[in-house]
């Protein structure tokens, strides 16, 4: 089976070709056209600007993905596309392009949930033992998901205010760092002392699986107000202290959730899963507590179409979705995993 996957939920335009042979998946291509440089000056993604670039990029990106995979339209069995959650103006471009190609080529279209796809990136030729606990961390999400099968999942906890990635971006902005804050804070933290500033670990002992990062951000603000002129070392130390506080809460709550539900496996997904410190600390803690641990390769952590294709393959295999009414698929910006 050959799947053409399309992703345009935020600021990356991406297309991928997945080839499946006897249950083994091969990512034949995964083209990502990023707009990060375009949105840098705004400190975040601007929907109208993003949509215009998606419109411009989407067909060239799809062509390139097909060319690199060495396929033509006649080889494709299914088109998979992200239809939510995300920015409405960005999602529409991918969804309508997928449907147009579906009509023109006579190929069915399957809609895929973007957050499910982040999780599914871990399924790529891994034999996952269920139940599993997944920590989903990105600019817009921080959630703990209980997974009982490839298509059976339930949200058991979430942030009550800011997403972890958003806290990184906002602290980055307070420190005068470039957007996006995550990668720069992670880099500056390597030169910093994580014990220099004492910051809270919000909700670390709350007894549930929820998170809060708004208060941590405010605590950083208070500490910064105490310093008159911030030097480079102060910035590095704050990056290290803040990152450690955020990572501590994420790791502790994930391990506790896994223990409470009797999970066999822990995995991580979403853009913040690319954070090195978080990968290291969660990996060590998971192994210490005898859980199997998976995290996707860096290139499959940030938004990409390969994960949409992997998710589509598992949905097809496990759930046998209805493919008759695909012409009615609509972009759904608020499509949350229940």
């Amino acid at each position, binding site marked *: 089976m050959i799947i053409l996957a399309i992703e345009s939920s935020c600021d990356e335009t991406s297309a991928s070709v997945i080839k499946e042979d006897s249950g083994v998946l091969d990512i034949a291509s995964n083209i990502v056209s990023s707009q990060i440089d375009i949105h840098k000056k*705004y400190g975040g993604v601007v929907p109208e600007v993003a949509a215009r670039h998606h419109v411009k990029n989407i067909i060239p990106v799809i062509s390139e993905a097909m060319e690199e995979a060495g396929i033509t339209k006649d080889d494709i069995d299914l088109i998979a596309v992200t239809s939510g959650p*995300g*920015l409405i103006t960005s999602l529409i471009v991918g969804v309508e392009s997928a449907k147009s190609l579906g009509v023109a080529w006579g190929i069915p279209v399957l809609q895929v949930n973007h957050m499910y796809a982040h999780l599914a990136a871990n399924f790529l030729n891994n034999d996952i033992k269920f139940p599993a606990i997944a920590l989903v961390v990105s600019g*817009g999400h921080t959630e703990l998901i209980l997974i009982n099968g490839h298509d059976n999942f339930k949200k058991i906890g979430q942030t*009550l*205010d*800011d*997403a972890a990635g958003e806290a990184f971006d906002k602290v980055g902005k307070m420190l005068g760092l470039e957007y996006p804050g995550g990668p720069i804070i992670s880099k500056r933290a390597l030169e910093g002392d994580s014990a220099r500033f004492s910051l809270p670990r919000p909700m670390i002992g709350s007894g549930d699986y929820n998170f809060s990062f708004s208060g941590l951000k405010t605590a950083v603000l208070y500490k910064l107000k105490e310093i008159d002129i911030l030097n480079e070392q102060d910035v590095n130390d704050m990056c290290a202290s803040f990152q450690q506080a955020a990572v501590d809460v994420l790791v502790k709550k994930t391990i506790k959730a896994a223990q409470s539900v009797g999970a066999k496996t822990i995995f991580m997904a979403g853009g913040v899963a690319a954070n090195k410190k978080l990968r290291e600390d969660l990996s060590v803690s998971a192994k210490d507590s005898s859980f199997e641990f998976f995290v996707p390769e860096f290139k499959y952590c940030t938004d990409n179409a390969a994960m949409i294709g992997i998710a589509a393959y598992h949905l097809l295999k496990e759930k046998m979705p209805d493919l008759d009414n695909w012409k009615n698929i609509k972009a759904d910006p608020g499509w949350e995993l229940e």
Partner: protein
Amino acid sequence: MKIITKSEKETYNFAREFAMQLAGGETICMVGDLGSGKTAFSKGLASGLGVDKIITSPTFVLMKNYEAKNGSIDKFAHIDAYRLSDANDLEAIGATDYINDDNCITAIEWADRVRDIWPKDCIEIDFKHLDGDQREINIKK
């Protein structure tokens, strides 16, 4: 009207009471720095409007929409203009539909960045961070 709250919880409770006095169709324009109480106020507002979902930050997606249950008010639109420099982007995602809806309460954080979108009869609320956990909340009609 100006009040001073001594904790996040007090800000939340004040907003909850405030929400119950709204008739529907109001736009609340919140102005204040990071950590000055806008998020706590928004959460209280939503609770007072009978929203039963968890209110999470709309910074990333710019607008989140919720179902409300308080008399004729059946929608709560939570907008965050933190990343924006003008109102065009809010119009692109359909924010004006909610602002002009009589059955919707619209709350805009960082509203000073999108003054073009403020309706004439909006309620402006300024937030100030005083010492420690104290916040000054100034409601201007």
